[in-house]
């Protein structure tokens, strides 16, 4: 699926009566990506996460256009099309097991319990996640294991647009290798965008990398 972004603007208003000023996180960003893997690099605070959240439909843009498969994509449509793996892996229910969490979020994405369980069981060993960890309560998992569960949540949707924000964070070497393979496989059928502060991992994951700085991305090809 072809993704075209033009002049994307996202501004966060200052809290009421705070005396602060609005924060312009995206200041006319442009991006084009086709089926395959595209890397997005940039310094802290450059707008990567805001870009991903806007493309995932979690945030609503203030200006600009987003075309998905040639058609204008509202935030609602983007939530149908995109699977988003946030940089922070703690957005799960801590009192539930990892498997129960995946089953719950799978249901919200339209997966039956059997489908969610089967996909989790298939993806877990690829990331070095033991079956016993899927049955463990989420708050008893290590940070790296939480990240693996978060990746499974996004990958199991098999969405046409896959947005992986810092997916290598906290992963061990085996899991990193497994994830690189999974990203490459997803890139055969989906448009995959990946961020990372590791130039090596980003280069290994994506043949093409764009850079974002101060909320802007120069239009066009490889940087």
């Amino acid at each position: 699926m072809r993704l075209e972004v033009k002049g994307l603007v996202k501004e966060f208003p200052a809290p009421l009566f705070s005396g602060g000023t609005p924060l312009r996180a995206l200041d006319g960003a442009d991006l084009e990506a086709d089926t395959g893997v595209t890397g997005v690099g940039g310094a802290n605070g450059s707008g990567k996460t805001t870009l991903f959240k806007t493309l995932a439909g979690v945030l609503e843009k203030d200006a600009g256009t987003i075309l998905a498969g040639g058609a204008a994509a509202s935030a609602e449509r983007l939530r149908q099309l995109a699977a988003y793996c946030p940089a922070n892996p703690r957005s799960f229910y801590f009192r539930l097991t990892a498997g129960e969490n995946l089953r719950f979020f799978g249901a919200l994405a339209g997966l039956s319990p059997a489908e969610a369980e089967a996909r989790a069981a298939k993806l877990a060993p690829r990331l070095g996640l033991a079956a016993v960890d899927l049955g463990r309560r989420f708050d008893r998992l290590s940070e790296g294991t939480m990240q693996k569960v978060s990746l499974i949540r996004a990958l199991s949707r098999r969405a046409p647009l896959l947005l992986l924000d810092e997916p290598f964070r906290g992963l061990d070497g085996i899991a990193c290798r497994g994830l690189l393979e999974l990203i490459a496989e997803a890139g055969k059928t989906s448009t995959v965008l990946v961020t990372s502060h590791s130039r090596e991992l980003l280069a290994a994951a994506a043949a093409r990398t764009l850079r974002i700085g101060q909320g802007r991305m120069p239009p066009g090809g490889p940087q």
Partner: protein
Amino acid sequence: MNAAGVIAAFVRRDFLAEKSYRLSFALGALATLANLAVFYFIGKLFGGGLAPQLEPFGTGYFAYVFTAMAFFGYIGTGAGSYAGRLRLEQTQGTLEATLSTPLGVPALLLSMSAWNFLFATFELLVYALAGAFIFKLDLGAANWWSAGLVFLLSAGCFAALGILSSCFVMLFKRGNPLAWILNNFEGLLGGVYFPVAVLPGWLIAVSNLLPVTYAVRAFQLAVHKGAGPAMIKGDLLALAAFDLLLIPASVWLFGRAVRRARRAGTLGEY
């Protein structure tokens, strides 16, 4: 998206989370019985004499407050649970993840409090069993069809109030004036603990603005006097009017509140 599947997923999630706090789960059920015992002994203290304000309902104080508490406990679930659930999602950091999925606002609203309603049904069963076997209440005169109609109209209305209340949580996180009114004044002014006729005239006028007043009165009359729909027509019409106004308004406003949070980037804040 399969709405039944989503509701089932929410119920399962909330059941598993509640079950993981085992002591709280058991104490919740015991608290219901302890609450009832307080009013049972208050009723005994003041004897079986019928207060003039209770005459229209044809029952003593304990039976009155028992019925009102059972009823209000259930319909009050709608008023209280939406804001509570939403706040919990915010503090857990799961709200943004939940709203990153294709889940729409109507499906979210149907699912979010489904577990609370199920648990309230269980509490209602505890009330019914306690009423029949421990407190030996006589509800032989009840018109259950009529009571069911009041129940249905009231549940919709209170769920709408709960959704409106959750809009404040979505936008301001803490500081919820509607929840404050619902928590502090519904029981006092709505005839839950005593008939509103006890109140001074100006407070009766205020209580007439609240749906709970119509709901509790109609339910009491249906249960204790066997009142049919024709006898409680005024209260039923008032509840239907509240439903017509509040249900679409609350769903629309909640959708607006979510959209505003998406624009302001505050979905993940608490």
